[in-house]
């Protein structure tokens, strides 16, 4: 087609090969692949479906060469929809009405095994270079569903969506053996139910907020956004905020350290809430409270939500955000929350970010927080995670200028059996005189699993960095498991970096004795010490209502888990 670059041609060709070569038995598979090549013509599909229904094939193994492959005879019938190709944005805005009509989102049976057609002839080198290794069945299925569910989205999101869609084509579902980032984390819970997507926001009353600026996401869909500097992406008037948002989203398309959950969110996010604080405006005392409520609609499926927020703090601005994730439906709702928060902090700005996660105990919560800090900026982050059966937080902070300050504090409490809490944090320092402190505390009761991978990269030009990392874990029961991997990768040679990890099975006996020596009974002292262990982090949240609520909930969970252990001991 005229006007297309060589690379694009190659990509399209590759995608076409994929689509045709391992046509899945589901027509949706093809429609997904086709729509990713931005072929909009509905007329193309029937023939492809026809094609696909007649042959099933097994996805190729990673070792086989994917790119240069001969076209199997049937696939030589190129989808005529290619003619319908227009510019990217056009295609994106009308994502194959057929897809929408594709029907239910039920799980299909996995394809039966068939002989795999080995590729034969070679194609151009460019295609070979761009060829991905493998495309995962489950990933594509979910991506397809997500893509279908987004009927209209702001054009500003397009570059992000397409980049993520592209990468999803070649991202395998991470397993503990194949992916280092998931070495300790068992994410099989995400596969236990088929995914369903919310069609519209449920009619639940929005939760009350003590703060004037608040945002409410219900099941990933933006319900309300009110506040001076808060707006949804679609409602942003043209101006500075919109430009910054557009630039930020375009830049997110090039985020190199992402994983498939980030991509899922990019593809499935319908709207983005933008908190844009103009230059010099200091509103750190009036936080923007962003509440994410989740429900589950069916017992047979997992409702997946992909809310996304973008915070831009211009030069010398100060803003505070409070993120709260909790279940709003009945107890024990089973859903998958996949939020992404992007925070851009310009020179001299300050962002105070409090994040409280108390999802239902049958929910999965995979979150990304991506932060960029410019010169002399401050980022203070406090996380309190007590809910969710599978909780994975990826925290990525990139330093873009010298003299930044980063303070991270996290508290994880696994109080239920088989609860998994995971924090994978990555702080990349490329500029001198950065200051950072990270404190991670976790209490593992019951048969829970807590994972911490704290990575700090001090690169060559990050001289005179002062980085400290401390992790303290309490393993309170014989079945609890804690995996801790503090790692500092230091290339600069004039730095001050410390890291410490303490995993103990019991509270410090000296501290306990100190309490006893002052007349406080052992039981009370143990409870108090456990409470204060966690409160040390929770108290760092600067806003009283949030703070107190989190403390109260933490206390309650500790009491209930203590009761559980007592009962277990007695029985």
């Amino acid at each position: 087609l005229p006007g297309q670059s060589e690379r694009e041609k190659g990509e399209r060709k590759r995608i076409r090969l994929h689509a045709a070569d391992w046509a899945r038995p589901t027509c949706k598979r093809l429609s997904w692949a086709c729509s990713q090549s931005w072929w909009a013509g509905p007329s193309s599909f029937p023939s492809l479906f026809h094609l696909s229904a007649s042959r099933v094939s097994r996805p190729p193994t990673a070792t086989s060469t994917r790119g240069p492959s001969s076209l199997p005879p049937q696939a030589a019938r190129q989808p005529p929809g290619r003619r319908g190709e227009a510019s990217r944005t056009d295609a994106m805005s009308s994502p194959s009405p057929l897809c929408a009509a594709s029907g239910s989102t039920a799980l299909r049976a996995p394809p039966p095994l068939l002989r795999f057609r080995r590729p034969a002839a070679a194609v151009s080198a460019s295609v070979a270079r761009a060829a991905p290794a493998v495309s995962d069945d489950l990933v594509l299925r979910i991506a397809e569903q997500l893509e279908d569910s987004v009927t209209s989205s702001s054009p500003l999101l397009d570059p992000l969506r397409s980049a993520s869609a592209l990468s999803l084509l070649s991202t395998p579902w991470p397993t503990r053996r194949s992916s280092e980032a998931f070495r300790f984390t068992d994410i099989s819970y995400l596969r236990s139910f088929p995914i369903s997507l919310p069609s519209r926001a449920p009619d639940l009353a929005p939760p009350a907020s003590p703060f004037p600026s608040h945002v409410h996401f219900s099941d990933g869909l933006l319900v309300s956004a009110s506040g001076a500097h808060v707006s949804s992406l679609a409602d942003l008037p043209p101006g500075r905020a919109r430009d910054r948002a557009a630039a930020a989203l375009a830049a997110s398309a090039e985020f190199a350290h992402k994983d498939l959950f980030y991509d899922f969110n990019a593809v499935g996010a319908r709207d983005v809430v933008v908190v844009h604080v103009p230059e010099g405006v200091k509103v750190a005392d009036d936080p923007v409270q962003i509440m994410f409520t989740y429900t589950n609609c069916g017992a047979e499926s997992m409702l997946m939500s992909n809310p996304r927020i973008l915070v831009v703090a211009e030069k010398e601005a100060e803003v505070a955000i409070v993120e709260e994730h909790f279940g709003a439906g009945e107890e024990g709702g089973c859903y998958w929350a996949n939020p992404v928060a992007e925070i851009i902090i310009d020179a001299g700005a300050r962002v105070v970010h409090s994040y409280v996660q108390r999802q239902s105990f049958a929910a999965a919560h995979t979150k990304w927080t991506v932060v960029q800090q410019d010169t002399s900026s401050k980022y203070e982050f406090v996380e309190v995670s007590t809910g969710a059966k599978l909780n994975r937080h990826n925290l990525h902070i990139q330093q873009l200028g010298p003299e930044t300050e980063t303070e991270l504090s996290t508290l994880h409490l696994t109080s239920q059996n088989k609860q998994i809490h995971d924090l994978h944090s990555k702080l990349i320092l490329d500029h001198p005189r950065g200051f950072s402190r990270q404190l991670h505390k976790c209490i593992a009761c019951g048969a829970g699993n807590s994972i911490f991978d704290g990575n700090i990269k001090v690169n060559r030009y990050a001289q005179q960095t002062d980085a400290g990392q401390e992790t303290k874990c309490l393993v309170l029961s014989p079945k609890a498991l804690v995996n801790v991997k503090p790692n500092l990768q230091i290339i600069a040679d004039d730095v001050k970096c410390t890291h410490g990890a303490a995993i103990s099975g019991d509270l410090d006996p000296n501290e306990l004795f100190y309490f006893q020596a002052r007349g406080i009974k052992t039981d009370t002292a143990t409870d108090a010490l456990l409470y204060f262990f966690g409160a040390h982090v929770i108290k760092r949240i600067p806003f009283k209502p949030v703070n107190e609520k989190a403390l109260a909930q933490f206390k309650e969970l500790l009491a209930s888990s203590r009761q559980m252990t007592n009962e277990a001991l007695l029985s």
Partner: protein
Amino acid sequence: MAPPLAAVSSSSPLFSPSSSRPLVRRHAPPSYVSMRTRGRSQPAAAAAAAESSGSPLLEVRGLTASVKETGQQILAGVDLTIREGEIHAIMGKNGSGKSTLTKFYLCKTNRDHAHCSGTCMFNQVFVFDLQVLVGHPHYKVTGGTILFKGEDLVDMEPEERSLAGLFMSFQAPIEIPGVSNFDFLLMAVNARREKSGLPALGPLEFYSVVSPKVDALKMDPKFLDRNVNEGFSGGERKRNEILQLSVIGADLALLDEIDSGLDVDALEDVANAVNGLLTPQNSVLMITHYQRLLDLIKPSYVHIMENGKIIKTGDSSIATQINEGGFKSIALV
């Protein structure tokens, strides 16, 4: 003078006719107790009190104790009586384990304690530790009794002992991150109030109770919000201990080397606080090396410990003697 003398020499086990302390009989009993002004009670009243005999708060009879793990004996028959209203001081060489005796007062179960005074028990053949009295888990009582207000201490849990009115200040107080000083004090005070059936104090009321005491010790009020002992120097920790004593209150306070790490001014403040807390009903047992604390808090009795026993008891003139001539000057002569 006669009545105190008589009272002291006949009934007090301090001067029991054991062969291990021939010196005791020869040594004049503290004759100046009633004359010396401590600034808190009338001399006459003190004499009268001694005569009417403040009931013994702490009675230690023939206490022998050994290290749990090695079986090494560390206390070889300690006899000590502390009555209400008395101030006792124990001095001894380094490593004579004075502190351990106090540990026995408080500790019970077998746990490793950082506040152990250190190398004491492993250096000498018969070292003894005062902390045995506190109930330190390293040590077990092999014989003798410890009675506090008539109750046997050995069977009591550390918190019970504390609630009974025994306060031990640690030689090296640890820090407790995450617990603020205020919360800690509030919990301790409420534990006591609960025991005596009083309603627990709320934070606001408690604040009004605590802040005058903080001011009296000349400490920065902001320190109440800081975590217990976090970032405190040694001297500040000791001051914190005394603050706890003044807030919580005690019948018998065991002050383990409260003077170490304090500068002159701080020491004066602390000594004033302790003196201010003394009443005819409560007593203090101090452990120290130096004369200067004894100049500020005048003891009624000074004991010298060595090798697991109290080898000498007297008044503060012994302390002066040691200060001038060293421990050898008062050796069993």
